[in-house]
């Protein structure tokens, strides 16, 4: 009787095909998954990035990048999404570059100074990310046009959510309740709005953008505070109403 009992599988054995390109959490124990670009693609895109201020987010920039990296113009066929690959690469590399700002993430403790809180770190990192667009901000509207195309929108949105997750994570946020979601959603909204504002900002050192960003963070604090108060009031009222009904003999 060599019949082996077989455990019912809840899902079919999946083929060990490709590694997942994104991991929805940060891990200290495992190396990060490979990014969306292989080494060849990265080398072409990396060579193309310096040409964006002159040639914009276009196929020409890709071709120049390919020839700078030792490839030929035909090799741009490596990028099925064409110029959007440049946008994606910019979003991806700028997001990863945030982890380099160690003076914000873990500042050296100073005598007689209060250490910077999570909120302050979030603000500082968001500003650093916006400054990552400094060189190409006059071309960013081209990128936004590409992002808005329906076939590219999912990638762009997931990059935005990864960005806000990255900022909160690097700032040391450890929330495990619904605020995990609201924090990320509100930061995404603030970032997207400020980035759009920045495309038309002509002030020196982007001072207007800075003010705009500060106002948006204040708005969120006010809205968040109000939301908290409303929730508290609604909870209290509901409990009180329940107790009144119970005191009248209603069985609930």
């Amino acid at each position: 009787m060599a019949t082996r009992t077989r455990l019912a599988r809840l899902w079919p054995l999946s083929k060990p095909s490709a590694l997942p390109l994104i991991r929805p959490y940060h891990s200290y124990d495992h190396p990060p998954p490979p990014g969306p670009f292989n080494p060849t693609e990265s080398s072409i895109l990396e060579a193309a990035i310096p040409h964006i201020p002159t040639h914009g987010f276009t196929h020409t920039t890709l071709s120049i990048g390919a020839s700078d990296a030792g490839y030929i113009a035909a090799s741009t066929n490596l990028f099925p999404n064409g110029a959007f690959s440049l946008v994606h690469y910019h979003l991806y590399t700028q997001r990863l570059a945030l982890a380099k700002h160690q003076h914000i993430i873990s500042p050296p403790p100073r005598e007689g100074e209060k250490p910077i809180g999570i909120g302050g770190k979030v603000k500082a990192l968001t500003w650093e990310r916006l400054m990552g667009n400094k060189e190409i901000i006059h071309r960013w509207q081209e990128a936004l046009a590409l992002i808005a195309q329906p076939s590219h929108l999912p990638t762009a949105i997931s990059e935005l959510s990864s960005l806000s997750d990255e900022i909160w994570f690097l700032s040391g946020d450890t929330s495990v309740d619904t605020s995990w979601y609201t924090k990320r959603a509100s930061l995404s909204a603030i970032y997207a709005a400020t980035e759009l504002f920045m495309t038309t900002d002509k002030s020196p050192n982007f001072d207007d953008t800075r003010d705009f960003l500060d106002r948006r963070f204040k708005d969120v604090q006010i809205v968040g505070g109000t939301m908290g108060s409303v929730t508290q009031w609604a909870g209290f009222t509901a409990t009180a109403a329940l107790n009144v009904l119970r005191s009248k003999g209603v069985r609930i």
Partner: protein
Amino acid sequence: MVFRSIVRPLLRASKPQYLPARSPRCFSKSARLTESPSQPSNHERTTHFGFETVPEAEKEARVAGVFSNVAASYDTMNDFMSLGIHRLWKDHFVRSLNPGSSSSPNSPGWKMLDIAGGTGDIAFRLLDHATNINNSPSSTITISDINPAMLAEGKKRSLATSYANSPRLSFLVANAEELETIESNSIDLYTVAFGIRNFTNKEKALREAFRVLKPGGVFACLEFSGVTNPLFDAVYKRWSFSAIPLIGQLVAGDRASYQYLVESIEKFPKQEEFRDMIKDAGFMVPGKGWEDLTGGIAAIHKGVKPIEKP
């Protein structure tokens, strides 16, 4: 009832098993011989010709027979069979390749090779795109086909284009598995549209493509593939196995060739498998490696030849 009595013979004609024994499917007789108990000697390498198994040495001649038969009515038939969609596929294929694009205004242009390009419809599109969109009048193309009848059709058609007798367009009768006349590392773009299915040895043809391409050059293939949606697949199978041989009989007067066509489509490796064949030949594939057209009836496969690291 009247309708039925008209339609039934047509439907019946569309099913292969109702074919009279003396049908023009001259190939099937010899195939039956090869499939009979007295099998061909085992050491003879075989390949498939539609659903039949034939010795490798024989496939080339048979494919030649098919395309010699259909050369003249080739495009009319394509229009009927695909309801005109093949033109959209070809346009999309060429647009996605963006031939003639360059990083500097005075680049030498692209050197392209259109394999199995007989009637030239891909080649003329490639040249049009390079000239009109990317302003690259120096891009050139070689149309290669194993079948002189198909190539003659292409030459005839080229006379109606602006590339007639120009140095930008050349013709070459050659087997895609042995392109001796073409130098290694000399081609920017290698295209094969609805052709690789008929090759006797696809791996060898892919290796040959890898050889002739410049480092960084692109292999691009437009070919029938597997429909991904099972419901649509059922409808499509009905269409291809019943209607296409029938249309072939009515329009081109040649049922056997179109029976072969649908069988060879069915036999051709599906998307993932063909992608892996391209990878095995040494190419890098962009993204997942292919793009489905019309739910996977056709697919565009691409591969880029890597540059040697200095």
